């Protein structure tokens, strides 16, 4: 019977250790890997309605020389307007966000936070965290 017990214990231990090895940083790592070292070109911006009677404002930049932003692997960011700074992807209360500490070309610092609606290998949708109606920004890598 000893061998049966040994087999049973080995199998149970196997099952016990078969749980996932996800860590708190796994999701951030994956989002970072999708985000970095690409030029993200703005294709659309959609601003929610201010009131129930005002319309949603959708702007298309497809086919135009448009705004783009790059997130580098070393944590730096720069955009087509010449604004540079650093960024970090964070998971706060279940919400995935990009926190950017930026400087204008005059050297004035400011912070921008985007909620990540969706990020992929070639598509990204961000929502700017501001007071008032939210603006969603649709980017592609072209």
């Amino acid at each position, binding site marked *: *019977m*000893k*061998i*049966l017990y*040994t*087999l049973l214990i*080995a*199998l149970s*231990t*196997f*099952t016990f*250790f*078969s*749980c*996932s*090895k*996800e860590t708190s940083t*796994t*999701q951030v*790592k*994956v*989002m970072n*890997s*999708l985000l970095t070292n690409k030029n993200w070109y703005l*294709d*659309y911006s*959609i601003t929610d309605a201010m009131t129930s009677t005002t319309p949603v404002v*959708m702007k298309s930049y497809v086919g135009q020389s448009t705004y783009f932003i790059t997130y580098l692997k070393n944590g730096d960011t720069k955009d087509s307007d010449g604004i540079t700074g650093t960024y970090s992807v964070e998971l706060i209360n*279940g919400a*995935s966000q990009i926190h950017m500490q930026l400087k204008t070309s005059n050297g004035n610092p400011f912070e921008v936070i985007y909620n*990540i*609606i*969706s*990020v*992929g*290998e*070639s*598509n990204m*949708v961000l929502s700017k965290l501001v007071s008032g109606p939210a603006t969603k920004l*649709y980017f*592609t890598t072209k």
Partner: protein
Amino acid sequence: MGLANTFSNRFIFIFLLAILVSSKVHAQILTKKQQDSAFLLHPGQERIRKFKKSLAKTFVNFTGNDLSLYGSLNLSKQKINDNDITAPINYLYNNLNNNSYEAGFSGGFRMDGIYNEKHRYSFSFGINRITVGNYYQNIYSLAPFIDDFTHFKADNVFTTINIAAHYKKLLPVGDMNKYKFYAVIGPSFDYKISSISEENLINGAGNKAIINGDFGAEFDNKGYYVLFAHYKFGVNMKSSSVPIQLNRFEIGMSIKTKDLF
């Protein structure tokens, strides 16, 4: 990975020990040195002898055990339900989805025998290199531009160790003294020993253990070799945010080790 290796080593050890014990003991003439050695006390050998004896007692009804080596071709496809993924990640559906069976391979040992002189069985232990086609059940979109996408990217190549216990029913087909056809049914268990990508771990999706229900047919050619075709239907052993159904067809051959070595 190291942990998986430790456990796989333990399984290999137990398996090899079982094989050792089940093999027939032949009478032999002892040399002078062996005769002298027989008078000495060997605690290690004594323990092994006792262990063998205990095994023989436990498995007294498992007779006619033949050890074989097997190799097989696997065709695999998995069905993926990523409904519970909450991470805001998209993968283009058309880039990932290929609703087809992909080829992999397996190899290992199997032991065939008879329980209580009536019930034929086989136990097997093997390693599978699985390449799998992925069918994503759910399609999402985000207007105005993102194409159809999925929230999850499943690994499509991985390695597992597999143990199986199959019941074999002899079918009354043809000349049963020469050729034997069997219907086969039983459970099997797979454990992924290859590393899991980080994409596969998001939101608790990662799962290393797969439990399978197997059935199929086997053809025994006068005991020279066995051709087999099995279908395996597998699911995650533990609950997961991405339940996966793994469908596999296994076509292969086994040859008795005593004929090979």
